[in-house]
């Protein structure tokens, strides 16, 4: 695979965004204490009434946004390769042969 600096930068950015949204902020969420998931948790009393709601440390909208941004960057990396015409070598290789006479 022929890669340029821009290719590598886009792939690195994509991976960083996806992993930040999932793993890095997931670790932050665990270290911050309950709730360990990424959604609010309602605490109820014995009668089943909601007495308190605890929210995640990091808004899940931010985390999903980071992941989606990472996937968009990955799509951009594919678009960049397409625009550059990677695969054009095949096109040249299959052009009709030109002879001298």
């Amino acid at each position, binding site marked *: 695979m022929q890669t340029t600096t821009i290719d590598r930068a886009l792939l690195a950015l994509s991976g960083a965004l996806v992993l930040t*949204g999932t793993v890095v902020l997931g670790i932050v969420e665990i270290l911050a204490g309950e709730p360990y*998931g990424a959604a609010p948790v309602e605490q109820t009393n014995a009668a089943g009434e909601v007495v308190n709601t605890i929210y995640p440390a990091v808004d899940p909208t931010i985390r999903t946004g980071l992941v989606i941004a990472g996937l968009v960057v990955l799509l951009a990396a594919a678009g960049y390769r397409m625009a550059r015409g990677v695969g054009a070598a095949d096109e040249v290789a*299959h052009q009709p042969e030109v002879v001298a006479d």
Partner: protein
Amino acid sequence: MATRAATPLSEAFEFEVDGALTAYWIAALRVITGWWFFHAGVTKLITDGLNFTYGPGYLKGMTGTALGPLPVWMGENLAWLIKPGVPLFETLIGLALMAGVLVRLAAFGGAFFMTLFWVGNAGFGHGLVTGDFMGLLLFVTMGVLATGRYYGLDAVIERTEFVRRRPRLKYLLG
């Protein structure tokens, strides 16, 4: 050679996409992912026909998400497309993946659907990585690995003169 003799399965399990087991497994994943979407689409077609009215309402309810106003706008303005489009495109995406035709295009469509489901369902009680997210990653994987080239019809289509003369089509096939 000594290493090869000591690990006779090293070639069978090596991370070469065209390695025997890798190609088989990638093709199997593609067909199963395709069946997943085909089943979702065709059962909607059976029950609702081309009038999946739940779709626009679902999108209108997606307020305050990472996708901003896009889903709500789609629900309000693209209902004419979403009602027939959800069952139809799910079915077609599934068929494309199972047959291995236009896999990258189908995978993009599937990833778009799964992004909306992942964010819209927002079942993050056990963390951000949900079943919907794993489905989204499956579609991305289908596209990145060009899985239609392994036991799929894209392998045949890409060898035609038409595609050889237009190599950019491999970004939709594969």
